[in-house]
């Protein structure tokens, strides 16, 4: 624990800390470009120079200098000021200074630090260097002349993403950042846009769209997967223009998956902006709220409770599910549209990742059963890789899944691999067992669950069992008990009975991930935001709100309830989903006992206290779950076959379509090689 003085302020830092970290500890701002907390130290931009005594009479790069006992550091001495001006002048020699046409303008480290530490003029009269722009795929736009060679992007892809696609080619003045004209086949590539301290790597879909100061910034929660990534939704007027990650050390650190970042252009397509009712001619006709709600209310009232089913989708917020559960009491409810065999009676410990997402950093072994974290939970996968890089950590895989970004031991394709799992876990102190949706959604899912439970180590300070969910709504739905009660029917039974006519009316809450053609004999009400499979099968469409358009509570796969705020309004006549159900309850003469979101939340939290305990994570109650039984021999496959298209928004997104075209073929090839 060296003690040192920074500008006269005494600080004590952990052994191994750098001078830069000591300066931050002392509250001093050190400008930097190449240094980043989560990346290895490069020390090549030289912007963080400070004066250190005792030492050679020249400035030292504080990011790469270990803090030493009794050091005296000066962060604002004449030597430091002079050195920073020199570095800044040097960096700007080959920088085009095209800020007025640069997308980074207004949120650019180089711009800010040039203002703060630079000089107002340049002595450079020679020609600037120009660099040919590189192709890095449909997501990342490059303007390479602006690059200052900090190599953050190179280190991110190599260290965090685990896809070493970017390199620094050439040397000295001829150095160029390049992927050799290949797209970056990583699920996390968008993060290099945030990391780039200048405008060399910018967002391709967002090019020339807006300036940062025009944007309304709203704190939200991502719903493209079950990680619950904290996001900032940037909107201008009615349009969501971009999504950026927010810092949350226990969930996403500061990363965001490409789907969450770039699928937002899907919010402008296929939107349901008016109520529709199927007319006598069999065609959907635009209607209005009163008429549509009347049709729905009459139909539901005319349906016996036992012939009504409600299926909640993958992105449905807890408020909507709670309202639906109250309103449709006695109906067949299910939030597990993927068909995962976790019983409604199971304790909470049976369906969350008990140790927490950050808990994997404390694990010493990881067993993945039918789970493919790279595509099912890309941001969490970066954390698994982080743990793997620290050493003393083995990952075992059971199932036919794609390549991960760390070394794995393949124990088998199907349930036969489970026999080897006990040997794999043997000897580990804190093993983690993650079961994927692909393994739980099979007919023998409950037996797989029981096997996984038996393999898990659960004691007072470690619960290594976890389910790797893929749907943002799933844990919340299970918490709320949005599952069939006694004699209730699950999704598969609902679909089968809808075909046979035993189920008369089906109410879909943004549920699209099943074969909707099986619903053609039933009367289908679709409440949702985008016209996908569910809306095509619908007899009445009630336009809802997509995730940036409503305030909602979501519980991520580790059981952490988080609240997303509304960034924009739904387009057209669309309404927030809970309010549609509230209006419907009025039309049904069964008015729900709350008039606003606060009232709804109070009732919801009274019924389900975990949803009120925001941002808390703890292992769930433990108990018996799963059903011992025979396993089928079929291999486990991931529930996500195309990372870029998993929900109505990403399926409607032109950017995701481009990614699928570019990287989908590669993913298929990879699957074949491993299959």
């Amino acid at each position, binding site marked *: 624990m060296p003690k040192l003085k920074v500008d006269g302020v005494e600080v004590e830092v952990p052994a191994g800390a750098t001078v830069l970290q000591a300066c931050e500890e002392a509250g001093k701002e050190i400008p930097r470009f190449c240094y980043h907390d989560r990346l290895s130290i490069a020390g090549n931009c030289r912007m963080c120079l400070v004066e250190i005594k005792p030492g050679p009479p020249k400035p030292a790069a504080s990011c790469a200098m270990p803090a030493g006992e009794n050091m005296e550091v000066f962060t604002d001495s004449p030597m430091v000021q002079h050195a920073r001006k020199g570095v800044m002048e040097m960096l700007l020699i080959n920088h085009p200074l095209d800020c007025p046409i640069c997308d980074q303008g207004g949120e650019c480290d180089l711009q800010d630090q040039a203002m703060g530490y630079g000089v107002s003029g340049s002595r450079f009269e020679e020609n600037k260097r120009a660099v*040919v722009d590189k192709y890095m795929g449909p997501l990342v736009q490059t303007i390479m002349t602006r690059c200052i060679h900090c190599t953050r992007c190179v280190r991110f892809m190599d260290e965090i993403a685990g896809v*070493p696609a970017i390199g*620094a080619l*050439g040397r000295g003045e001829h150095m*160029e950042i390049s992927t050799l004209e290949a797209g970056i086949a990583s699920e996390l590539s968008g993060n290099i846009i945030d990391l780039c301290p200048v405008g060399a790597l910018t967002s391709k879909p967002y090019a020339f769209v807006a300036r940062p100061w025009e944007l309304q910034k709203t704190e939200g929660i991502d719903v493209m997967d079950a990680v619950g990534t904290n996001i900032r939704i940037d909107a201008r007027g009615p349009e969501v223009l971009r999504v950026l990650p927010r810092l949350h050390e226990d969930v996403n650190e500061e990363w965001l998956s490409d789907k969450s970042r770039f699928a937002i252009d899907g919010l402008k397509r296929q939107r349901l902006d008016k109520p529709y009712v199927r007319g006598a001619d069999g065609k959907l006709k635009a209607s209005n709220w009163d008429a549509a709600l009347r049709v729905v209310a009459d139909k539901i009232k005319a349906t016996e409770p036992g012939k009504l089913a409600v299926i909640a989708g993958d992105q449905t917020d807890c408020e909507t599910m709670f309202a639906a559960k109250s309103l449709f009491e006695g109906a067949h409810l299910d939030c597990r549209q993927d068909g995962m065999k976790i019983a409604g009676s199971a304790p909470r410990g049976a369906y969350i990742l008990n140790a927490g997402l950050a808990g994997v950093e404390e694990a010493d072994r990881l067993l993945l059963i039918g789970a493919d974290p790279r595509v099912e939970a890309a941001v969490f996968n970066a954390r698994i890789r982080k743990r793997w890089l620290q050493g003393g950590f083995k990952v075992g895989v059971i199932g036919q899944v794609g390549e991960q970004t760390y070394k794995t031991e393949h124990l088998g394709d199907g349930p036969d691999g489970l026999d080897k799992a006990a040997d794999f876990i043997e000897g580990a102190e804190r093993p983690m067992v993650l079961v994927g949706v692909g393994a739980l959604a099979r007919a023998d899912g409950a037996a797989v669950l029981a096997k996984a439970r038996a393999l898990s180590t659960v004691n007072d300070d470690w619960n290594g069992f976890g389910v790797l969910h893929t749907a943002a709504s799933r844990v919340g739905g299970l918490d709320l008990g949005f599952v069939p009660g006694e004699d209730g029917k699950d999704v598969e039974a609902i679909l089968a009975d809808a075909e046979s006519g035993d189920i008369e009316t089906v109410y879909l809450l943004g549920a699209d991930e099943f074969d909707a053609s099986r619903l053609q004999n039933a009367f289908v009400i679709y409440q949702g935001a985008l016209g996908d499979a569910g809306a095509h099968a619908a007899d009445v469409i009630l336009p809802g709100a997509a995730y940036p358009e409503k305030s909602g509570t979501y519980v991520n796969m580790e059981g952490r309830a988080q609240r997303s705020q509304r960034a924009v309004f739904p387009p057209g006549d669309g309404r927030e989903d809970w309010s549609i159900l509230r209006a419907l309850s009025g039309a049904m003469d069964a008015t729900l006992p709350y008039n606003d979101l606060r009232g709804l939340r109070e009732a919801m939290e009274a019924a389900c206290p975990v949803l009120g305990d925001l941002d808390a994570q703890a292992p769930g109650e433990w108990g018996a779950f799963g059903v011992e039984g025979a396993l089928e021999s079929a291999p486990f496959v991931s529930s996500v076959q195309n990372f870029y298209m998993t929900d109505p928004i990403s399926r409607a997104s032109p950017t995701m379509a481009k990614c699928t075209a570019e990287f989908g073929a590669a993913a298929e090839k990879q699957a074949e090689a491993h299959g």
Partner: protein
Amino acid sequence: MSGLDIAPDKMQPKAFAFDAEHDARANVIIAKYPDAKKQSAVMPLLDLAQRQHGGWIPRAAIEMIADRLEMPSIRVWEVATFYTMYFLAPKGQHKVQVCTTTPCWLRGSDDVVKACKDHLGIGFGQVTEDGKFSLHEVECLGACVNAPMIQIDDDYYEDLDAASTTRILEAFAKGETPEHGPQNGRRGSEPAKA
């Protein structure tokens, strides 16, 4: 100047493999390093590939070396583009590599460069019409005590001036290989005579 000098696709061979002789040498080189650190062999392997493939390294060779050393191909590209001794496109039969880094420049590398350009009639990065010579500007080759210097193929020619540079190039043009080392009568790097 910017951009990498990589041979166009039509010149790139589809595949590359070491022949028996080079393969044996590659095995000897790789065996020098612990198995987990075998990527340390990347530089000598690139050199082997260049020698086998007529003085330049095709894309296929870089991919092959990456596979063989189990490292990402971009890392091999980084090495191959960093060092001036690797050529990624066909060059002249003799590669005249002039050092222009500060010590050589202070000792008169401008004269050496001018002599090369005048005598060969080409600029940096170019190849003479007969394909015999190509001229390259390189960074410090570590022979500063005998500056200025040029490297032709595997040999250093040191303590040069315009006349000795021209003489060396003429000898190469005639098919001779002139004596390498200092060209002003010095032995090795002994103190220059006053």
